[in-house]
């Protein structure tokens, strides 16, 4: 689930809540199509339809889900898969920090808020800043629940579709997964510096692959992030 936030023409944001509604729904629908790709990726990696759908229901953070099934598809161990997913999910904790004072929920509702705290809900909420806190909250909940609905429906469709197709390589599904990762990466490469980080990570992963167990190079690439982020530029 990449950064897919469109703010209407020229990025100008105007009145709430109808425009907020439009922002939220367009994001939710677009993300749904990523769900199709995830459903197919889950099946291609060897998970069942039920397991693939549980990922989307319970994990519900796209890049982490893709990472977990990706590591398993690459022949990696369970620990590498979970570690990769958890590390990709750490940004959600930072989103939570930003959203907590905004949504101000207590008790059990906090669990729901946390579960739908993802790239899209946070981005739409922050994009509503000029429309005030009411619109921000509205954007957060609407995008979060909208993405949840579409993401899960499309995961199921993608999984059933891939199941019906059979051999993943025969239909190009084994190439669709790395293409999906590239598609998730692409919108994040907003500066030359970030492109250098991406290319360095790829080169690093290729270089260490023969020396490490399957799946471990993915986790090890975090070292590249540490190396680049250690010092202030």
């Amino acid at each position, binding site marked *: 689930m990449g950064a897919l936030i469109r703010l209407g023409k020229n990025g100008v944001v105007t009145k709430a809540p109808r425009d907020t509604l439009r922002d939220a729904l367009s994001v939710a629908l*677009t993300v749904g*199509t990523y769900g*199709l*790709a995830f459903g197919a990726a889950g099946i291609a990696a*060897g998970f069942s339809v039920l*397991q693939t759908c*549980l990922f989307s229901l*319970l*994990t519900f*953070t796209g*890049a982490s889900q893709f*990472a977990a099934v*990706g590591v*398993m*598809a*690459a*022949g990696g161990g*369970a620990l590498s898969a*979970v570690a*990769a*997913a*958890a*590390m*990709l*999910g750490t940004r959600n*904790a*930072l989103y*939570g*920090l930003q*959203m*907590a004072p905004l949504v101000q929920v207590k008790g059990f509702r*906090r669990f729901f808020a946390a579960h739908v*705290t993802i790239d899209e809900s946070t981005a739409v909420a922050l994009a509503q800043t000029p429309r005030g806190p009411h619109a921000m909250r509205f954007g957060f909940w609407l995008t979060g629940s909208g993405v949840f609905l579409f993401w899960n429906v499309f995961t199921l469709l993608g999984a059933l579709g891939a199941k019906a197709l059979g051999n993943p*390589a025969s*239909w*190009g599904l*084994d*190439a*669709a997964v*790395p*293409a*999906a*990762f*590239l598609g998730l*990466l692409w919108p*994040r490469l907003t500066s030359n510096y970030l492109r250098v*980080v*991406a290319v360095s*990570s*790829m080169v690093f*992963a290729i270089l260490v*692959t023969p020396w490490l167990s*399957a799946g471990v190079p993915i986790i090890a*690439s*975090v070292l590249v*992030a*540490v190396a680049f*982020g*250690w010092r*202030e530029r």
Partner: protein
Amino acid sequence: MSQTTAWVVVISTSVACFSVKLLGYYIPAGWLAHPRLQRVNALVPIALLSALVVAEGLVEKTRVVIDHRLAGLCVALALLLAKAPFPVVVVGAAVASAILYHLH
């Protein structure tokens, strides 16, 4: 992958990712405010997603291999450069890879 492994991965991933989300709502804001942590954290998705492109597109077990998947990746790259939407990128890569797979 055994069924047991598959279930362990599904459940552990879900628990880990939900815990991380919940963390954001319970810890004091200052805890994650360290600039170094913020800088590294901003780069982690880029590093991991880049490595995943390689692991899924160029690697088989622990070997770097060039096969039909690379053709798919090249098509994906071309489509992204042409600003194609995500579904087009994924389907384009799949079609290119499948064609090469069957020619082979």
